[in-house]
């Protein structure tokens, strides 16, 4: 039998061409696999709907300010744009984007380990010069990087559009650090979602099942968040929102969605979102927690799930 292996030239690969970056190969493969999906871009676009709405509104008001024949309308339009707190707009954008971030995380990560369990791919991964840590780091980055991209794209787009178009309305002056806060926020959120879906993924042999359970946890915890939000909002309408007790605040933020909103509030330095349109406050008006609280909580949850994933990832099922 003769074949292309006959020259044995591949033996030279063992003499210096090889590298030890299996984790990067895994991350790249995960990233490529996710960004190739149309759904990824559709969800990314959908997650930015709030920024689009705000930009359209501001554009309309800007046109009114420039072109209206009524001075009063011009003044009200300028007042509206000037009184926008841009960090609040971003806080709203982050909040309204949570559901899409969940779907993006599920798309990128629910099957990341579960499908490998199903197809025995771990036998191949771990029989190569690739350790469990390489595997987990690679898988984590393979989910994290597309999520950061998806979270950052709308925010960065909004930031640069705002910086160029609305600097006269205080866009850059209000928070000079916003340009750094946005990537920081995106990375923290992406890291949290990534750790959750990877941890869940490692527990199952079916990506869909892992995704369904992750989504169920998200929605069930979020249900209580919304319920508490309603109770708090009702209480706040009777008295000052600052009287919300700490346990109630903690409970309000005790969901995937809630932890991320609390983190966003801490980083953006805003207690609530909303445009200066008058009317009732939205359910983001629960006072923020100190930033370290959601950060510590998300760190513990993420660490726990990653520890679980580390324990579950193995090439052979060892019965003790």
């Amino acid at each position, binding site marked *: 039998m003769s074949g292309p292996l006959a020259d044995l030239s591949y033996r030279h690969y*063992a003499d210096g061409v090889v590298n030890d970056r299996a984790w990067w190969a895994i991350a790249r493969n995960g990233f490529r696999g996710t960004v190739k999906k149309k759904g990824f871009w559709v969800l990314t676009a959908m997650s930015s709907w709030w920024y689009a709405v705000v930009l359209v509104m501001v554009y309309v008001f800007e046109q009114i300010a420039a072109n209206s024949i009524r001075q009063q309308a011009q003044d009200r339009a300028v007042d509206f744009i000037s009184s926008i707190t841009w960090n609040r707009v971003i806080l709203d954008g982050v909040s309204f984007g949570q559901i899409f971030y969940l779907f993006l995380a599920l798309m990128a990560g629910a099957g990341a380990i579960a499908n490998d369990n199903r197809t025995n791919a771990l036998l191949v991964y771990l029989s190569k010069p690739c350790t469990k840590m390489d595997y987990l780091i690679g898988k984590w980055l393979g989910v994290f990087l597309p999520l950061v991209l998806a979270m950052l794209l709308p925010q960065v787009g909004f930031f640069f559009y705002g910086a160029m178009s609305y600097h006269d309305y205080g866009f850059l002056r209000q928070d000079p650090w916003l340009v750094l806060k946005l990537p920081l926020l995106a990375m923290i959120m992406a890291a949290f979602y990534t750790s959750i879906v990877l941890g869940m993924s490692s527990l199952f042999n079916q990506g869909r099942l892992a995704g369904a359970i992750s989504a169920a946890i998200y929605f069930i915890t979020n249900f209580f968040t919304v319920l508490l939000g309603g109770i708090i909002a009702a209480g706040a309408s009777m008295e000052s929102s600052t009287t919300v007790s700490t346990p109630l605040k903690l409970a309000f933020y005790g969901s995937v969605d809630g932890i991320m909103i609390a983190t966003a509030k801490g980083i953006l330095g805003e207690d609530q979102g909303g445009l200066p349109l008058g009317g009732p406050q939205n359910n983001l008006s629960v006072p923020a927690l100190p930033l370290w609280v959601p950060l510590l909580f998300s760190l513990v949850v993420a660490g726990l799930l990653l520890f679980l994933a580390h324990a579950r990832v193995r090439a052979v099922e060892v019965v003790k």
Partner: protein
Amino acid sequence: MAVADLRNLSVQYGSFLALNDFTCAFPEGCVGLLGPNGAGKTTLIKTLLGFVDPAQGTGTVMGADITRERREVRRRVGYMPEQDCHFPGLSGVGFVAYAGELAGLPSNQALRRAHEVLEYCGLGEARYRNVETYSTGMKQRIKLAQALVHGPRLLLLDEPTNGLDPKGREEMLDLVRDISHGKGVNVIVCSHLLKDIERTCDEVVVVFQGQLRRQGNIRDLKRLEGVPMDVELKEASADFVTELLRRQMLLIHQDSNHYRVQSDQAPDQSGRMILEAARAAGAQVRSYQVATRSLEDAFLEAIR
């Protein structure tokens, strides 16, 4: 040089001792790892790869320690698992190229190399299809291709003919034989199919109940103790038996014109004595040769 050298290796799953004080040096070439189901073959392979930690003992694979230098071991070794395995959602060429990248090849070379090994393993145009649509035979081939992609010096093949039809089995065995005898790659084939081992390997290691039972060249293992000779005459002859006994040769058994005889002499000398006995008895010798037994007999004796 031994491709794998194990000293007093014990592996435990809870209270079950899967490998018990296993000491063995696997020589270069193609070695068959034989044993009945549950003998510890797969555990041994997985220990070589560092998938399971030995409770005691040491070992090296291609000179690298199996507990301390696992990455180095896996760089030098290619592993074809028994179970179906693939990366979900990838085509054949994508799967093998990705396996090459995991092994440390730059992506462009991994792709080139993937095409080479897939061609070699006979996957042709099927390489562009999703692996999940492959037949059993194709899955076996692609598992072999991913094990070969980084140019390992040692291949560990766990039941490579599992689930194959007779034609696929023949082709797989041809590939394994070519890899070990034509391409200079050391191979350890783990199987309970004696014919597969006999077809591809020069040496065997027999494992039973987690212990090494027998090791050596297949020809030596098949050879019977005392160097008996099988003789075939044109016709059965009582005089021939008389002449044999006169020359202090022992008749082990006779079946019509087939005789198995034994002497305390070397095979050459025994052969001469057989010819002399036949001439004296006026019998015509059709053939004579050193008697051997089947590998199955040797195996059964080893695990008895």
